[in-house]
């Protein structure tokens, strides 16, 4: 398993209503619908292992697909939707910056959680 990279295959990446509600951006609808999240797939999701190394190697559409997959796992289990106060475009910007300046080992879900937590206080 070590070092193996699997493209996520189970998470449907069609631009869902929830994603739209969360403020998705980038790419046209067709290319986003075709894109898959990046990172090693484990237990039905890439959320556990996807890191900055994966992010750097992904296309724009794959990155948005990855954000969508993360959002699904990082909203409450009791929530009927995957809507988040963190807009996908904002998450994209944060990951771009963090993965440009931080180590490739950073797990994106851990970063997503804290950015999501402070999203309502982001003014810019």
């Amino acid at each position, binding site marked *: 398993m*070590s070092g193996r990279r699997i493209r996520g295959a189970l998470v449907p990446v069609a631009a869902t209503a929830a994603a739209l509600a969360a403020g998705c951006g980038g790419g046209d609808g067709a290319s986003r619908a075709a894109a898959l999240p990046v990172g090693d797939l484990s237990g039905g*999701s890439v959320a556990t292992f996807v890191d900055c190394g994966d992010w750097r190697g992904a296309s724009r559409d794959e990155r948005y697909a990855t954000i969508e997959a993360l959002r699904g*796992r990082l909203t409450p289990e009791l929530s009927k939707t995957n809507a988040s106060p963190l807009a996908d475009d904002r998450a994209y910007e944060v990951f771009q910056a963090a993965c*440009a300046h931080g180590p490739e080992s950073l797990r994106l*879900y851990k970063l997503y*959680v804290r950015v999501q*937590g402070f999203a*309502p206080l982001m003014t810019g």
Partner: protein
Amino acid sequence: MDLRGIRWKVALAGAALGLVVPGAALAHLERPSYWPDPAPDTSVRPAAGGRVPLASPLRTAVTGKRTRRQSRSGRAGTGDVRVVCQGRGGARSMRLAEASIRRARTRGYRLRPSQPTTRLSARQARELLEINRRLRAKCRYHSVQEAIDASGNNDRVVIMPGTYTEPESRKQPENDPRCNPSLLQKDASGDQAPSYAYQVTCPHDQNLIYVQGRALKGEPLAEPRTDRRGIPAQELGRCVRCNLQIEGSGAKPEDVILDAGSDYEGSGPEASPGGHAKHVVLRADRADGFVGRNFLMRGAREHGFYTEETDGTLLDRVKFFWNADYGHLAFTSDHQRVQNCDGMGAGDAVVYPGAAPETGSQSTDFYPDAPRMNTVITRCDLRHSTLGFSGSMGNAVRITDNHIYGNATGIASDTLSSAGHPGFPSDSSRIDNNYIYANNFNVYDPGSPVKPLVTVPVGAGVIYAGMNDARVHDNWFFDNWRFGTLLFAVPDALTSYGGPEGDVFPGVRCAGAPVVPLSTSCGNHYFRNRVGQVPKGFEFPEILDRYPVPHSKAGARAMPNGTDFWWDEFLSNRENCWYGNRGPDGTAQSVTGSGEAGAFPGLPPNPLPDCADGRTPSLSIGLGDLAKEAYLVECAQGPKAPTGPIACDWYSAPPRPGSAEQAALRRRYEAASTAFLATPAADALGKLVGDLAKGAGVTP
């Protein structure tokens, strides 16, 4: 509400370079999870759970004799004994045992790097050797997993010295089609995670060694229950491996290595793996009354030890080395104790008890003996990791009598990761009588041997991100170059969209909460700590310098922290008190804080509210500080290029306290903070904070 009018302290005057840190949120992803019934399960004898289990002495594995106390107290591991060994007839294990025992007799060993050498007496060495000879004669297994699979309730697995890589487990595929996707469990919105049945059916999909504590029964609930008290009856099977004890028979924990790594660089127990064969070294799932003792867990892609929905676990004399995420992870588990441990090399934390039961200030009649601590971490060295300790929703967890050093941040506990973590908000943490020092490991440096998975400040002792009713007392905090401790709020609206996970029980300290959506960072007390002082006779553990951790020169009696106590003063937070603490010169006057709730801005040493020496907590109330809040928001976004006047600096090594570099940095941040208050961004932030605080009854 325009908060620009709020008097704010140039937070950083005392805050030493202090850009703040929403850092504590660690989080972890798992199936919808429930707290186990805290009462003992009397369907087995002795009853399982209901308390921290007791270990059976090693010698009883060969004598078969139970001591009177053992019989009376109902220890784990009193049933059948299965011995695991290596080499033909156990020859290799016996050679290793002999060598280790001889060395422990003549030269001694360190159970923890901060502690003196332990030597076996001649009698102890003879006895341990004889035990191993008799174990060798009983050895029938070469795989730990095979011995576990053959075991039932109350049984014991004794592992003789050697490194156990479990080749059969390694061969099993990940995302095994026997289980994936058919045994994935969905949450309310359809997102998937492996169910308990998944782990039982495909135990080595993720785990090197798996302990199935309870039988499979029915399906998990179609949607998670809001009340997480009690595992749903429809899927809670009978005990099949409760009160199981697993232990090494060597002189020291490193003699038995449970190893999920590969491609090691270097040699010896602390060698660093270049790859990982499995996510978890040893997973004990719903395994009430589990005892693990005297071995090392190494090289997992995620966690060394992992227990979930378990009532009763004792880990004693264990080590967690180079597990990429957590060394130890306990989730929704009760009656836990980890003692005499040593851990390093974690990309997140060495020890993590998360989503701990509500046995603190929000306890209900589900816990008739509450309030009580549900988890104790004691006599451990937590070192050379991104975090020594962490825990999201770490309710009623006690951290006592440990050495926590050489990490980026020593301890973090938070309410940030609410999704998937029942127990909102986090409360009743207790940190006492620890030595917390030299947590200055810059794991974000490209050359760092530890690969960080999470973002925390370099140079911090303790972070509470959204904690209530904590007690931090009688600790020694020194040589943490950015912060001794940090306390800041995580407003409810920020925890995660959709609100907290599961029910919120009464007893939240913050006024009006949770109706008023500011439920965190109230009622925390810091007292009788020594900050910036070095205990008499203290010496840094030699091992501290094995990795590039900046620290002061040995021998000094004072080793200041950057800022001793930092508080964000979030609007309406109440009853947070600091008293009876003594600074580098032995007096309260030399303790540094980040300001006194709106009064005396910038006056050194910027004391925090002492609440009349702790007697009148109501004297402390947060009046807001926009500069600090702006830092929090900035730092939440992780590493990035400086983007404004208040840039986050916590991914770099902090300057040495007292240095010219530190003084210059403080001046820079003072100016930047002042400038920030005059910006439209401050106006906008003030409005957001003010809106959140509506109804809290606090007027800036």
